[in-house]
């Protein structure tokens, strides 16, 4: 009989980066890398567990932009082209490294890996990874959380409560269409919470969400069990808190697993080490270098000196680290059991893209961890958060504190001198949408199409990714442009709708480009805004 629960949560998200207007897009490559290195490897691990009849429970949040891209036939065929090129490159690498045994075997490893991934994508999963997640959920092995429409950072949109409501509502509607059931849990983008957001979730009949540690430890009144049991917001939405100890083991700069010297070094990709001429067919058409995913070195140590990666050592280390993680959870639970009058739940959320992309051995580590938990011990059981709530529907009432899992723990990352110009625009855009919803309660035909697209442009502008990228100094121009483009498109549409002169060709063009949420989302704005006139956030 278990003494406590472990809920591992993978938050999978990428911004909506679909660029059919370009022959090649660097941003789309974020998706392709994640499919090759993260999503397919994780799915293969989960399917292996199923085949071996290992019982497990894991939680995933798959955001609407990611799901939309994974379901998009255009991106699926571009992905196929990409993985086929990688296989070709790996073949060339096998030939090139023939006289360097330590690299040759790695080139063979990558070739095998890419071939396996292509096979899984094309035949096993028939290009549709989303339906694999869906099937795992239907089997009761994983629980998939809903999230906001475009990974909007809700605390900074809450000036206009209807904007928050619409983000939640559209995200949930999308979830229902894709997964054919009502979501119980909701992933708050960046774990961004402020009091009042819970009520928006409550309106959508969301049962629970997950907050960063201090969202719970600083709840009012003080939670009796810290983050080892959830609290119930006064609205009835249950908030789980992230366990700091298990997070630290993966993320800590000192003791974090991914920094192990035997693991693969992320920063030594052949894309930066080899000649232009050789690499040319695999780079961007303008010669821009970006990661190929073929990396031959291990972390080795703290200096620039890197030695060749040894897959067997890394695999062994992943197993040791998995055993260590389990051991620490056992000790943790043993201690907690001595002071708690209920079974503790350890909630361990991670960015999914850490596993396999940055931490190459992450999926292997997970594989060992789940198997060890199932077979080597009895104190811990993996749970989904819904299962936990079935056993413990009774929870202490407390209002969690404003918090996020970003640097500094609050809003700093998404609101600072580099990106504060976004908010007046986003707030204004939400107000504009609100006035549209008031003015056009019943629209049809071309006007409805334009109103729907205006809604899509608004939610795309609201994605927290843009503010994040600007703040972290990566692809600042791209992020700035995305924000401005969606706002300009929204403004143009509003102008056209009001003047009654809708440019159908122009509308069709942006419909085919920004094709997220191909359903009547205007209706949802309409509901959100009329509800907010009765109900405010703060």
């Amino acid at each position, binding site marked *: 009989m278990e003494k406590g629960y472990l809920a591992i949560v993978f938050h999978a998200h990428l911004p909506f980066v679909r660029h059919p207007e*370009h022959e090649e897009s*660097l*941003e789309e490559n974020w998706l392709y890398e994640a499919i090759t290195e993260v999503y397919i490897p994780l799915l293969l691990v989960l399917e292996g567990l199923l085949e071996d009849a290992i019982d497990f429970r894991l939680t995933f949040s798959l955001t609407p932009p990611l799901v939309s891209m994974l379901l998009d036939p255009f991106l699926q065929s571009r992905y196929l082209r990409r993985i086929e090129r990688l296989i070709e490159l790996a073949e060339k690498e096998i030939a090139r490294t023939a006289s360097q045994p330590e690299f040759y075997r790695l080139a063979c490893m990558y070739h095998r890996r890419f071939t396996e991934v292509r096979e899984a994508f094309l035949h096993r999963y028939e290009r549709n990874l989303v339906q694999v997640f869906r099937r795992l959920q239907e089997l009761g092995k994983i629980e998939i959380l809903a999230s906001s429409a475009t990974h909007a950072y809700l*605390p*900074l949109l809450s*000036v206009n409560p209807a904007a928050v409501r619409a983000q939640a509502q559209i995200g949930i509607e999308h979830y229902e269409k894709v997964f054919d059931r009502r979501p119980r849990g909701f992933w708050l983008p960046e774990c961004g919470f402020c009091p009042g957001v819970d*009520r928006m979730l409550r309106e959508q009949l969301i049962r629970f969400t997950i907050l960063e540690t*201090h969202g719970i*430890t*600083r709840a*009012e009144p*003080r*939670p*009796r069990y*810290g*983050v080892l049991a959830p609290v*119930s917001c006064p609205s*009835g939405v*249950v908030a789980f808190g992230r366990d700091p100890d298990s*997070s630290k083991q993966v*993320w*800590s*700069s000192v003791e974090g697993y*991914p920094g192990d010297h035997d693991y693969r070094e992320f920063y030594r990709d052949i*894309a930066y080490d080899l000649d232009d001429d050789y690499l040319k067919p695999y780079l961007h058409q*303008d010669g*821009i*270098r*970006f*990661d190929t995913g073929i990396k031959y070195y291990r972390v080795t*140590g*703290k*200096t*620039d000196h890197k030695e060749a990666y040894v897959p067997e050592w890394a695999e062994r280390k992943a197993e040791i680290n998995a055993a260590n993680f389990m051991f620490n959870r056992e000790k943790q639970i043993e201690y907690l059991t001595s002071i708690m009058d209920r079974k503790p739940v350890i909630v361990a959320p991670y*960015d999914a893209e850490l596993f396999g*992309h940055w931490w190459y051995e992450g999926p292997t580590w997970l594989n060992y961890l789940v198997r060890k938990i199932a077979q080597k011990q009895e104190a811990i059981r993996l749970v989904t958060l819904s299962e936990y*709530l079935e056993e413990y*529907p*009774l*929870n202490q*009432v407390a209002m969690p504190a404003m918090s996020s*899992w*970003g640097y*500094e*723990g609050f809003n700093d990352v998404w*609101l600072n001198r580099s990106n504060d110009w976004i908010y*007046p*625009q986003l707030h*204004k855009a939400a107000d504009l949408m609100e006035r549209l919803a008031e003015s056009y309660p019943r629209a049809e035909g071309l006007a409805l199409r334009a109103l729907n697209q205006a809604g899509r442009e608004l939610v795309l502008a609201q994605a927290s990714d843009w503010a*994040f990228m600007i703040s*972290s*100094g990566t692809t600042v*121009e*791209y992020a700035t442009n995305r924000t*401005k*483009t969606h706002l300009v498109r929204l*403004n143009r549409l509003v102008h056209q709708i009001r003047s009654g002169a809708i440019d159908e060709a122009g509308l069709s063009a942006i419909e085919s480009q920004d094709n997220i949420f191909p359903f009547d989302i205007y209706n949802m704005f309409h509901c959100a805004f009329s509800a907010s006139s*009765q*109900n405010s956030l*703060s």
Partner: protein
Amino acid sequence: VSQRDSTKSKRGGRRRKLVRGQKVEISKVFPGLPIKPSEFPHFYEHTRVVLLPVNPYLVHVYWEVPPHDLKEIKKLLGRPALRAQPVLRFRDITSIIFDGTNAHSHFDVDIDLGAGNWYVHLWGPAKSYCVDLGLRTNDGQFHPLARSNIAQTPRARPSGRAEETYMLVEGDYHRVEAVPPPAGHVPGPVRMRPESSGAAESAEIGQRPAEPYSLQDWRQFVSEPEQGRVRNSESGLNDDTDLTAMNERSFLFGMSSGKMASREENTGPSDR
């Protein structure tokens, strides 16, 4: 020669890695749009001020004053307007229902109206504020132009308030009930909240928005808890069993991809 991202992203793991190595002009990766200034309006039709919390000790305020509004007020004030100081008047309305006049206190921050936004450092966390944007004339008179939303700054430490209330939520909100305290708890005197009268039975709340569920408080404390440290029960639990304090101690801010970034700085190649 390897081309590496030189940014020191604080929480950049995922997206940062995914986009590494790009030094490229935007025109090559994104078509952009020919954006005409008229399409990207700077002003609302009316004067407006918005308050956004950043962290427990910092808030951001932005405002927009359309030129015609400014002209209007200056005309109204006459000569004194010429030497009026634009200010943000912060009203502390923590834990009260603000009726426009009953703030605990206020303080002014002198601003440059043309800046459009301001960051204001605060002394204490967990406060509610509302801000008036206005002009202060030489005679000390304050002439408001607009009032902001109400915003709360986050808490910086665990609460000292430790009374315990429990809520049972079943299924998909089919029932929300007031329930007896969980087994093992020693309830103190039961205190019913005023709004809970007559609603202690199970209730269908499917249609009801938010708030007043029937709740009961079981007070665990007779005496006031110490500031910043709470004993969890009559038996006097010490720090090793105060789970909230324990979690708070082992918690590090921003422990997600950002920690990766700092690890990279420690262990990564030195040319970054």
